[in-house]
C-alpha cells in the first residue's frame, strides 16, 4: 500500500511529508526531487521507479504530489487517491498553491491521517470529513454529535450525515456535454464522441431516496411496444449510451438489473454520473480553417464557423482560440461579428462572440507577421479550440426524473 506521501513546490522543496510505512526512508524524498522534479526532460511516465521504490506523481499548477511505495500496489487506486486528495484539499482551502499548502499544513497532516490509514485510503468524501475535521480549534461536541460521527465513520452511507434540514427542498440537475471530434485534414470525421456529466446540486432534508430513469435505448426496448408508441407520441428521442459511470452513492447492482439510478445523494454539489455516446452525433458547429503561408515571414489565416443546430436555439459565450506560431511578431485581425484579439502571452488569437443563433455563419481573417528564425524546432501546430454554451429546456433532455 502507499508507504508515504510527499508534496513539493516547483523548486522541489518539500511542503508536506507523511510516511506511513517503515520501508520508506527520508532519502525517498530526495530521490524524487533529483530524478523527477529536477530532471531535464519532460515527464515520460507518471510512475517512476527509483531504486526499487515506485513514485506515483501528479502535478497541480506548480505543485507536485507524490505517493511512494515499495510494494506492488494497486496503481489505479493510488492515482484515484491522489486526485481525491486534491479535491479534498481544494474543498478545504481552495486552489492548490504553495501559499495555501503552507498556510494549511497542519490541516493537511490531519486530513492525511484521516483519509490514509497505514497507507490504505479511507472515506474521503469532503462532506463527511468536514463534520469532524474542522479548521477551527475545539468545537464543543455534544454526545449526539459525537455518536453521529461514529455512525458516519463506520456506517454504510459515508457521504452524507444524518439530520440535515432545509426549509425548502431543492434539487438542481446540470447536464454538461463535451463533444470530442477528430477530423482528418480533408475534413473527414475520424471519430466523434460525446462525453457528458450530470452534476447535481441537492438541498434535501433527511436521508432522501432519489430515483432517476433515463430514456436510453436499452430501457425503452425493455419497456416494450406500449412505450414505443408513447415515445413517438411525445416526440422523445431515445439515445444510445455506450457506457456510463456513477458516483459511489448510486446502487450499481440496481442499475445493472433495472437500469434505474437510485441513490441517497450527498449534500450539496456532486457529480452523479458520466456517460459517453458515439451514435448520432450532430456537430453543433463546424470550424473551417484556411491557412496560407506567404513567404517565410507571413501567415494568412481565415476561419469560418457555421452553427449547425436548430435556428430556434442560441449558442452563448462563444470563444474560439486560434493558436499562433511562437515567433509571431504582430497580428492584424478582421472579424465580422464579435471581438477578436491577439494575446501574445497565450500565443493565440482569441475570438469572442456573445451569441449566435442556429444555422448561421461567421468568419474571421488574420494576417500574422513572423520573425525570421533559425530555430530548428518545429511548431507543434496546436488545434483550434472552441467553447460555447447552449441552454436547452428540460423537455429536450434525455433525463427523466421520477
Amino acid at each position, binding site marked *: 500500500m502507499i508507504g508515504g506521501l510527499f508534496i513539493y513546490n516547483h523548486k522541489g*522543496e*518539500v*511542503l*508536506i*511529508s507523511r*510516511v506511513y510505512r*517503515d*520501508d520508506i526512508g527520508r532519502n525517498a524524498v530526495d530521490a524524487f526531487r533529483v530524478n523527477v522534479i529536477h530532471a531535464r526532460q*519532460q*515527464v515520460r*511516465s*507518471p*510512475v517512476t*521507479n527509483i531504486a*526499487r521504490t515506485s513514485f*506515483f506523481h*501528479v502535478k497541480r499548477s506548480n505543485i507536485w504530489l507524490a505517493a511512494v511505495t*515499495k510494494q*506492488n*500496489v*494497486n*496503481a*489505479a487506486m493510488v*492515482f*484515484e*487517491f491522489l*486526485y481525491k486528495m486534491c479535491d479534498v484539499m481544494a474543498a478545504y482551502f481552495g486552489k492548490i498553491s504553495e*501559499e495555501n499548502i503552507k498556510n494549511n*499544513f*497542519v490541516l493537511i497532516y*490531519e486530513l492525511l*491521517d484521516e483519509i490514509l490509514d497505514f497507507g*490504505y*485510503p479511507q*472515506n*474521503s468524501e469532503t462532506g463527511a470529513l468536514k463534520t469532524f475535521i474542522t479548521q477551527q*480549534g475545539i468545537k464543543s461536541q455534544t454526545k449526539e454529535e459525537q455518536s453521529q460521527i461514529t455512525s458516519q465513520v463506520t456506517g*454504510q452511507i*459515508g457521504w452524507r450525515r444524518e439530520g440535515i434540514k432545509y426549509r425548502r427542498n431543492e434539487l438542481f440537475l446540470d447536464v454538461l456535454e463535451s463533444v470530442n471530434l*477528430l477530423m*482528418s*485534414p480533408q475534413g473527414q470525421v*475520424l*471519430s466523434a464522441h460525446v*462525453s457528458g456529466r450530470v452534476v447535481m446540486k441537492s438541498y434535501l432534508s433527511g436521508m432522501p431516496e432519489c430515483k432517476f430513469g433515463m430514456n436510453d435505448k436499452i430501457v425503452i426496448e425493455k419497456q416494450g411496444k406500449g412505450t414505443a408508441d408513447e415515445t413517438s407520441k411525445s416526440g422523445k428521442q431515445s439515445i444510445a449510451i*455506450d*457506457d456510463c*459511470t*456513477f458516483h*459511489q452513492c*448510486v446502487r*450499481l*447492482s440496481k*442499475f*445493472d438489473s433495472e437500469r434505474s439510478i437510485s441513490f441517497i445523494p450527498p449534500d450539496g454539489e456532486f457529480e452523479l454520473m*458520466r456517460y*459517453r455516446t458515439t451514435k448520432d452525433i450532430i456537430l453543433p458547429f463546424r470550424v473551417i480553417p484556411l491557412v496560407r503561408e506567404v513567404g517565410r515571414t507571413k501567415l494568412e489565416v481565415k476561419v469560418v464557423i457555421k452553427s449547425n443546430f436548430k435556428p430556434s436555439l442560441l449558442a452563448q459565450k462563444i470563444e474560439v482560440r486560434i493558436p499562433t506560431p511562437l515567433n509571431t511578431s504582430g497580428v492584424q485581425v478582421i472579424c465580422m461579428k464579435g471581438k477578436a484579439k491577439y494575446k501574445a502571452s497565450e500565443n493565440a488569437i482569441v475570438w469572442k462572440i456573445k451569441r449566435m443563433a442556429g444555422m448561421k455563419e461567421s468568419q474571421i481573417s488574420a494576417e500574422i507577421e513572423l520573425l525570421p528564425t533559425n530555430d530548428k*524546432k518545429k511548431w*507543434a501546430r496546436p*488545434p483550434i479550440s472552441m467553447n460555447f454554451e447552449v441552454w436547452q429546456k428540460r423537455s429536450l433532455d434525455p433525463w427523466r426524473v421520477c
Partner: protein
Amino acid sequence: MTDSKYFTTTKKGEIFELKAELNSDKKEKKKEAVKKVIASMTVGKDVSALFPDVVNCMQTDNLELKKLVYLYLMNYAKSQPDMAIMAVNTFVKVVANAVAALSEIAESHPSSNLLDLNPQSINKLLTALNECTEWGQIFILDCLANYTPKDDREAQSICERVTPRLSHANSAVVLSAVKVLMKFMEMLSKDLDYYGTLLKKLAPPLVTLLSAEPELQYVALRNINLIVQKRPEILKHEMKVFFVKYNDPIYVKLEKLDIMIRLASQANIAQVLAELKEYATEVDVDFVRKAVRAIGRCAIKVEQSAERCVSTLLDLIQTKVNYVVQEAIVVIKDIFRKYPNKYESVIATLCENLDSLDEPEARAAMIWIVGEYAERIDNADELLESFLEGFHDESTQVQLQLLTAIVKLFLKKPTETQELVQQVLSLATQDSDNPDLRDRGYIYWRLLSTDPVAAKEVVLAEKPLISEETDLIEPTLLDELICYIGTLASVYHKPPSAFVEGGRGVVHKSLPPRTASNESTESPETAPAGAPSGEQPDVIPTQGDLLGDLLNLDLGPPVSGPPLATSSVQMGAVDLLGGGLDSLIGGPNFVAPPAAAVPANLGATMGSGLSDLFDLTSGVGTLSGSYVAPKAVWLPAMKAKGLEISGTFTRQVGSISMDLQLTNKALQVMTDFAIQFNRNSFGLAPAAPLQVHAPLSPNQTVEISLPLNTVGSVMKMEPLNNLQVAVKNNIDVFYFSTLYPLHILFVEDGKMDRQMFLATWKDIPNENEAQFQIRDCPLNAEAVSSRLQSSNIFTVAKRNVEGQDMLYQSLKLTNGIWVLAELRIQPGNPSFTLSLKCRAPEVSQHVYQAYETILKN
C-alpha cells in the same frame, strides 16, 4: 492565519529556542512552538531532540494541541520507541476502542490466513461489496481475484455479481472488477452465451477509462495492452478511441500507439496508416520514431497493406528529417525480410540517404540491405568500402554486419571483391579486441578458404521469415500479469518479484504467518541463525529464521494467489526452489575445477570425465584426497516425511563436494529433487543442480556427489562452519543444518614461502595467537607431516629444539585467509601443542578441530 511563516525560520540555536517555547506556560505559545517543530520536521530537519518536550505538551485538554503532538509522535515514534510507548498511554482512551476491535479480528483469524477463501466468505465479501466505500470495494475486489472458484457455475455467479462495478466512477474499482472478470472468464466455456455477453460488457468501461485524467489513462492503457494481447476480441472494434489527441501527454501517446498496432487488422489498416503518417510529422522525437516503426510493423502484420506502408515510408524518407529516415530504413529492412524479392525497387532511394545515417542501428540495417541485395546494386562494393574506412570507430553491431555483408558480396561477385574481403577479414581478426567479431571473422575465413561452396550454402542460406508480432509478452508472463491487473506489475509489465524487495508480500501469501521471519527478511545482516550451544542439534535454527533467510533468495515464480484456471497445470508444477536454483547455477553444466589445481598425475583421469571420478570417490575414503568423515545422518526420515538424508564432505583434487545418500523411507515415490544452501561463512554453494536421475522408489537409496564451489553469497554464521540446507522434492521442502569440517576449505596452494612465513608470523599480533592441546596422538613428526599434507596443511619448516620436534605449517582457506601453525611434538609424549596464528582469529578453533580430525582418523 498564515502558517507559512513557520517554514521560514532558519536561525541558529533554533532547537534551543524551541525548547524554551515548548516549556512555556502559555498555551498559545506552546501551540506556536509545536507548529514550528512540525514545519521543521517536514523540511527534513532533525527535531527528534525535542521529543520529551513535545510529549510534555500533551498534558493538556486543548484538543488542537493534542492533535499536533500526535503528528509529531507519529513521525518520531520509530526512532524513540521507548519514549513513544510512554506517550501513547495518554492517548489510550481514544485508541482503546480501535485496538479492541483489531484484537478481536486477530483472534477470529488464529492463523491469520486471510487468503483462505471459501464460497461462504466469498458470498459475504460480495454482499459487502455493495455496502462499503469506493476504497473498500477495491480491497474486496482485489481479494476476490485471489480466489479460485470450484467450477464454472460458481465463476459465472461471481462474475454476474461483480459486473455492476464496471459502472463505478472510480477507475480503480473498474480495473479491479476487470481483473476479477478476466481471471474468472478463463473458467467459462466459450460456447456459453454468458461468455459472449461478458466480452461485450468489458469493452465500454475500458474505453471510458480513456476519458480519465492522463495519469490514470496511462495505467489503463498499460493494462489494456495486456488485455488486448490476452483477448484481442474485446476491443477489436474500438481502434478509433486509441487515436492520439493533440494534448495527450507523451506517455499516453506512446502507449496508444502501441495498442493501435496490436489492434491493426485488414479492416482498419487504412485508417491506422493515415493516422500514423500524421504522427510521423509530430514534434516529439520519440513519438515520431515509434510512429515510423509502427508503419513498418503494420506492413509486416497486414500483408495487404505492405505496399502502402512501403510507399508511406518512402514519402517519409523524402522529408529528409534525419531520425525519420534512419527509423524508416530500420523498418524497411524488416519488410524485406518478411516479403523477400518484392520491394527491392526502393533500394536506390535508400542508398541516396547513406550519408545521413549516424545511428548504429540504421547503419547496420543499411549495410545488411546492401549485402543482401549486392547483386542488384551496381556499386555495392563502393558503398561497403566507404563504411570500411572508419571500421574501428563503428559500434560492434555495425562491424559484425559489415563483415557479413562483405562476405556475402564476395560470394556473389567473387572476382571484383577479393581485396575487399581480405581487408575486412584482417580488420576483424587481427585488429579487433572484440571476441565476437574475431570469432565470426575466423569462421568466415576458414569457410572461405576450405570450401567456398559450403560457405555459399551457409552464408547465403534462405532466411526464416520473421514473425508478425515482434514484442508480444511471453504467454506465461502475460497470464501472470493478468492476475495483477490494476497494480504496479501491470504498469511495469514485470512480475512483482522483479521490483518488490525480497519477494515480500509475494511468496509470503502462501506461507503461514511468521512475524519473526518478516523481520529477518527485512534486515538480513542482523539475522544470524539461532544461538548455538555447541552441539549439533542445537545448531538447527528455528524453521522460521531459516525460512526467512532462504526466502531472501529469489525463489523464482511467485506462488501467491490461485493461478488462472488454464495455467494452473503449469503453475502447479512450478517448484518452490526450482526457479531460484536454476538461476543461481546458470545451467545444468558441470562446473569444472580450474585445471591449474589438478596435480599432474591425475590429469589423465580428469580427461575421462569428472562425474565418473566423483562417483568413484563418493563415500570411499581416498588416499590422495583430504580426510573424509563417515556419513552422518543429517535429516532423519521422521522430520522429512520419509526422506532420510545422510552425508559428508570431501575435498578431492581441488574440488569440494557434498556426498549425499538419499533414502526413501516413505511409501510414495519421490521425484523432483532440488537443493539450495543458505548464505554461509565461506560462500559454499552447489556448483550443479542436484541430479537424481530416476524417481526414488520406496526403500530405495541413492548416492549422489554434489559438487560445490565457494562463489556463493557470504554471511557470517554462528558457528562459523554452519551450513543451512533446503532440500526439495515432490512432497515438500525440508530444512536441515550441518557443520562442515573446515579442512575441505584448505586449498592446494597453501604452502607458504619460508621467509614469508617468518615475516607473517611476526606481523600477526600476539593476541591473535591461540594454543591448543592435541592429546592421545601416537604418530611421530614424519607421519604427522605427511598426513596433514594430504589434507593441504603444509609443513614449511621443521626444527628440533631441545629434543622436541617443531613443525611450522601453513594453510590457506578458499577465501584467501592464511593460517600459520606451530606444532610441538615431544617424542614419546602423545600430547602435541598447537599454536595457531591468523589474522582472522575466529577460524582458529575450527582449524584446531580440523587438526584433531585429520590426525586421529
